[in-house]
């Protein structure tokens, strides 16, 4: 295999993977927050909220991510005029695309976070909620103080899978021109057609380096955190 391209200064491979990491971390934080809120809605006693949560999850979980991200750029930003960066900025396109991509990834990934957390809530024995209500806690208190802390501890492993999937899903952001790893890969595939296999291997390796430690670390955390029943 030919790895000459590694010494070409035009290709900032580490920089591209850094964008991937940023996309992953920001989208993970956003999805965690929005996904928890969605899960709370889906178990809430208010029918309207339950209905919204169910509809949201079913719509966005079943829409291809590419479609969501392209819609972010083409429909939301270009047609409806939603911009997430200053239009006069010299890096407007770059910033706007990056933020739209984070938004799109949050919209999509939060559905999986929501469903993981909901399955965690189901592992908490009904007696816990009944006891909490018996001492006079409101629904929000039951959820935040009693149920969610136990639920979250039991869903670290499934959430780790969601995080790994998210890391790889960030490659879809190249469809709207976010300069992450897979966009650089397309550029290199175009220019280095004599070293395709080398290019693919480097990027595959990069993703393994990102996801493997995530899985191992969170697997260990899952073991430590789980509620022994």
């Amino acid at each position, binding site marked *: 295999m030919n790895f000459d391209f590694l010494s070409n200064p035009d290709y900032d491979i580490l920089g591209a993977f850094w964008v991937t990491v940023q996309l992953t971390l920001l989208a993970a934080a956003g999805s965690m927050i929005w996904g928890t809120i969605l899960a709370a809605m889906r178990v809430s006693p208010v029918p309207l909220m339950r209905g919204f949560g169910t509809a949201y999850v079913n719509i966005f979980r079943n829409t291809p991510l590419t479609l969501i991200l392209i819609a972010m750029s083409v429909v939301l930003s270009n047609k409806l005029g939603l911009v997430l960066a200053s239009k006069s900025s010299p890096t407007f396109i770059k910033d706007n695309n990056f933020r739209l991509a984070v938004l799109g990834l949050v919209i999509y990934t939060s559905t999986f976070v929501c469903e993981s957390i909901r399955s965690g809530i189901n592992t908490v024995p009904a007696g816990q909620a009944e006891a909490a209500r018996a001492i006079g806690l409101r629904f929000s208190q039951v959820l935040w103080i009693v149920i969610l802390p136990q639920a979250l501890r039991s869903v670290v492993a499934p959430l780790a899978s969601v995080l790994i999937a998210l890391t790889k899903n960030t490659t879809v952001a190249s469809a709207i021109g976010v300069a992450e790893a897979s966009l650089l890969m397309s550029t290199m*595939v175009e220019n280095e057609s004599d070293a395709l296999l080398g290019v693919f291997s480097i990027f595959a390796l990069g993703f393994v380096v990102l996801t493997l430690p995530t899985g191992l670390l969170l697997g260990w955390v899952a073991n430590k955190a789980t509620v022994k029943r």
Partner: protein
Amino acid sequence: MKLRKSAIALLSVVLLAQTLSACGKKDSKGNSLADKPNKLTVGIKFDQPGLGLKAPDGTFKGFDVDVAKYIAKELGVKEGDITFKESKSAERENLIEKGEVDYIVATYSITDVRKEKVAFAGPYFVAHQDLLVKSSNTKITGPESLTGNMKLCSVKGSTPAQKIKDKYSKAVQLQEYGTYSDCVDALLSGAVDAVTTDDVILAGYAAQHPGDLKVIGKGFSDEHYGVGLKKTDTKGKTAINAAITKMIGDGSWEAALQKNVGPSGYKIPAKPAVTE
């Protein structure tokens, strides 16, 4: 024990890599295209209006398609025996090396890097990188008029986009999408100021939106489109070169261009010299 495990893992990775690279090498003797094949599989683009486009009814239209058919005719293959296969930019070298297609006519620019892997016949067309703008735009008159804060769109990873950044304006902001159609859409909605790639491709889109879009018409690079085929097939290359020369000579080249990209107002360029 641990060491042995990782050694096994490493070994399997190496083996896998070798199997993969072997995939690319098999079938290197193959038959020459010049030896009267019975049927042909030809790689074209499926998504470029005017060049290679798959119509909803399953037929193929475009200049590349006409060139591919003409070559097949010269090689002694009937039109019904041609199978068209989509060859996306990133896959072209691999499709040829693995023998999944016999030759490729898909806006395939002849470059030295590509010649390491495949052979080219032709060129059958010389395109120039150009800019597509809204008809009402009077500010952009050529690549030099691109200034800071203007927004340019091209397909991700493509050479035209890289060229603008390198040669003309570092201040130009570049929007990259997966397809040119997304770029044209962004241009129509005003999100970008210009779309850049080869003029003949842009002409196809200008033809889809008559009155709204125009091609600037100041080409600023030469892209020699060639017919890609197996590197070892010298006889086939000669045969295809002869077919292209004949097509240019007997007027069908011009007729095919006129039919496919003429309606957009694209000026038919001078005939290329077959030099490969």
